[in-house]
């Protein structure tokens, strides 16, 4: 997408096409406060005002194919300044959801597919996960003041269940230790689960609400099985 004339195909204008979408896009007064506030404005010709107007005009295919919805970070700065309170970030996410799943950029779809199939984005087997947790827990226990430290896995009746961001059992295992040290100092009765520990939910990024529901549902299921009332889900 390089120029406006390439973006807008006037033959396809259809004002009624997206009228049922619940984002108030037709209220746009074209003031461009969104465009002025957005750090991504201008990248690849991106302009949130133009995006909103294109939805109003029913020019959906162009937006679905564009990189725009993926360059936007869904940060919501645009809608925060929008005088008409248009839900621009949700609108962008809706456009993301219309992209063929195979054409979702980068590793987003692959990671999400892995999570849905195996429980985590890395396809990390249960045994390997437990090994990593135990290994890092031993490292913590070697530090002064944490001699008695243990990382309880699948502890029934614990007070608190915590999810884990997959990067913490991949390339950033050191960052597992911060919360663990706090739990130890606070004498928290906590646990992690050996399956479905994944804290990220990439359905949020790909516009896949059903996938988000599956990921959240698994966490709830684990809490019910282990009879745990409190959840720490910092991802």
């Amino acid at each position: 997408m390089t120029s406006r004339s390439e973006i807008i195909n006037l033959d396809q204008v259809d004002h009624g096409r997206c009228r049922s979408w619940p984002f108030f896009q037709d209220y746009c007064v074209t003031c461009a406060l969104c465009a002025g506030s957005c750090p991504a404005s201008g990248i690849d010709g991106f302009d949130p005002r133009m995006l909103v107007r294109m939805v109003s005009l029913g020019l959906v295919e162009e937006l679905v194919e564009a990189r725009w919805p993926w360059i936007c970070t869904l940060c919501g700065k645009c809608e925060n300044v929008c005088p008409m309170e248009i839900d621009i970030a949700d609108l962008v996410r809706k456009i993301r959801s219309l992209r063929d799943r195979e054409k979702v950029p980068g590793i987003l779809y692959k990671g999400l597919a892995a999570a849905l199939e195996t429980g985590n984005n890395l396809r990390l087997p249960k045994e390997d996960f437990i090994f990593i947790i135990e290994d890092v827990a031993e490292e913590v226990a070697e530090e002064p003041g944490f001699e008695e430290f243990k990382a309880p896995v699948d502890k029934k009746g614990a007070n608190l269940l915590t999810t884990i961001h997959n990067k913490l059992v991949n390339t950033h295992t050191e960052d597992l230790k911060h919360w663990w040290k706090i739990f130890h100092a606070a004498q928290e009765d906590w646990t992690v689960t050996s399956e479905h520990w994944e804290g990220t939910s990439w359905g949020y990024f790909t516009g896949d609400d059903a996938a988000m529901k599956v990921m959240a549902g698994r966490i709830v299921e684990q809490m019910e099985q282990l009879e745990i009332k409190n959840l720490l889900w910092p991802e």
Partner: protein
Amino acid sequence: MFDLLITYIKEGRIKLDRSKHTELAAYHDPCNYGRKAQKFFGHGFFEEPRWIMDQCMENWVDLYPNRMDQICCGGGGGALTTGYNEERVFYARKKIDQIKTTGAKMLVVPCHSCHGQFNNIKEEYGLGDLKIMYLWELVADCLIL
């Protein structure tokens, strides 16, 4: 997450050393804990992390603008995983200006995406020495055992 840390501190279950970090730090509001949480849940977590910052250290400042008017780091919404890396780095220029203006040596963030983004781009913007810390990492680091 913030509420849990605040509970631990207020109930006296953890004690924190406020004198450990003396160099100037800055706090960054992640979109999802702040502006988006305000919109979706009617409560943005703005004051809670600042209260926790106060318990951990004295010498920290806010970026400007902040809270509802905060500027995104550029790593959110899956941007770290789309492969559009040049765009993602360029996106961060406004955020980096905010940080440079403060002169902070450390940036505290309570978000995995922000943490990943800042560590990924800081060299490119000449901030190689800027320490990026999770808020809970700061708390863990200030624990008095």
